[in-house]
């Protein structure tokens, strides 16, 4: 790892100020950034630790609205009793990220800001029509995820929380890469009064996307059988050492069926 200057912020305002210097990067759980710095894929001049800012932590369920602070760890999302009863699909998703040690450090804000094409949370946010709240504005998930590791975030902009409405039904199913546990294909299905949204991660060659044919089929008939009739094209899907685009196209369908069955 190259030399770096560490700063610990005690508030979002302080973090924003510190992050505006040099080539600074925010440091949340560090489960992506530290490994990237070790391999020199990332070489920030400064890192600004936001993991201890209390205002960025915790899960709040009030009425039908769920708000999760950006620095809330995967472990704390997975174990939150209120969330487990309001939107169990999100707690369940968090409980399958990486391994227990990664979940003790990694955070929802870091995962969303990083927008790894195989990360789990982006699928949940897109399917739930979530809002990404930053220190400057609110961005809908539809506008937030912009491709491989690309988001709508501007330089120095800090994700402060994620907000979404409780759906009628939702579930997430992933086919995890057996080595890393990242999604080789993951599908999040959410049914609300506005319709059905289906988001796919791990499969698209431009990151997370909505599967509109599956959405259309499920809007008519919310059942696994309805997904069976849909043909998922391999166009625009990823091919790599783990799986071909055709294999992933099939996984999209299988994971969607399982998610619908799980959502009940």
């Amino acid at each position: 790892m190259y030399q770096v200057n560490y700063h610990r912020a005690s508030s979002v305002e302080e973090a924003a100020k510190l992050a505006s210097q040099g080539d600074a990067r925010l440091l949340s759980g560090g489960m992506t950034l530290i490994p990237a710095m070790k391999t020199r894929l990332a070489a920030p001049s400064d890192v600004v630790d936001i993991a201890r800012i209390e205002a960025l932590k915790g899960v709040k369920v009030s009425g039908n609205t769920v708000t999760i602070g950006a620095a809330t760890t995967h472990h704390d999302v997975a174990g939150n009793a209120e969330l487990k009863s309001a939107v169990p699909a999100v707690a369940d998703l968090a409980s399958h990220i990486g391994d227990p040690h990664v979940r003790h450090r990694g955070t929802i804000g870091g995962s969303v800001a990083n927008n790894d094409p195989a990360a789990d949370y982006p699928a949940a946010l897109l399917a739930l029509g979530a809002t990404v709240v930053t220190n400057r504005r609110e961005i809908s998930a539809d506008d937030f995820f912009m491709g491989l590791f690309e988001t709508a975030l501007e330089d120095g902009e800090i994700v402060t929380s994620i907000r979404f409405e409780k759906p009628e039904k939702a579930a997430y199913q992933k086919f995890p890469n057996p080595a890393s546990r990242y999604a080789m294909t993951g599908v999040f299905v959410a049914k609300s009064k506005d319709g059905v949204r289906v988001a796919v991660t791990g499969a698209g060659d431009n990151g997370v996307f909505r599967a509109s044919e599956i959405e259309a089929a499920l809007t008519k008939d919310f059942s696994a059988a309805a997904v069976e009739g849909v043909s998922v094209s391999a166009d625009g899907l990823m091919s790599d050492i783990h799986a071909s685009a055709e294999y992933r196209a099939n996984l999209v369908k299988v994971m969607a069926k399982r998610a619908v069955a799980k959502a009940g």
Partner: protein
Amino acid sequence: MSNVSLVLNGRSVSAEVEDRTLLVHFIRENQGLTGTHVGCDTSQCGACVVHVDGKAVKSCSMLAVQASGSEVVTIEGLSDGADLHPVQAAFREHHGLQCGFCTPGMIMAATDMIRRHPEGLDEKTVRAELEGNICRCTGYHNIVKAILAASEAMAKGGKGAAKAA
């Protein structure tokens, strides 16, 4: 350089280190506690697992200065003098190690796992929870056996049960 002050196995320690110093290097090189291992250095293997503020983390994927102000427990902090911690005793009893390289991380992961599952553990849960710990020797079978046995022994209020809490 930054000052890193933390409680390491119950003892307050403080040192000036480069900001880029990883927690595992602080523990091994600065503090001379070499029980915590570096297996992969790519955040996969779990040989470096320690507890920070009561939670298992990969110390190769965290800066020492991130842990400043925290309580850190390493494999050296588990036993009570010559008395092994129940998880250590179970690993010995059930042959949960061969070369022993992964063992400190396995044991730190196991004590954390048992603490998070006061209701008890089954084989499926133990195997799923060992996702972040790789062993090249044992085939995991005896590790799983040792963890299940330790969890039961500790639930019965065996010695050291309170320590892992």
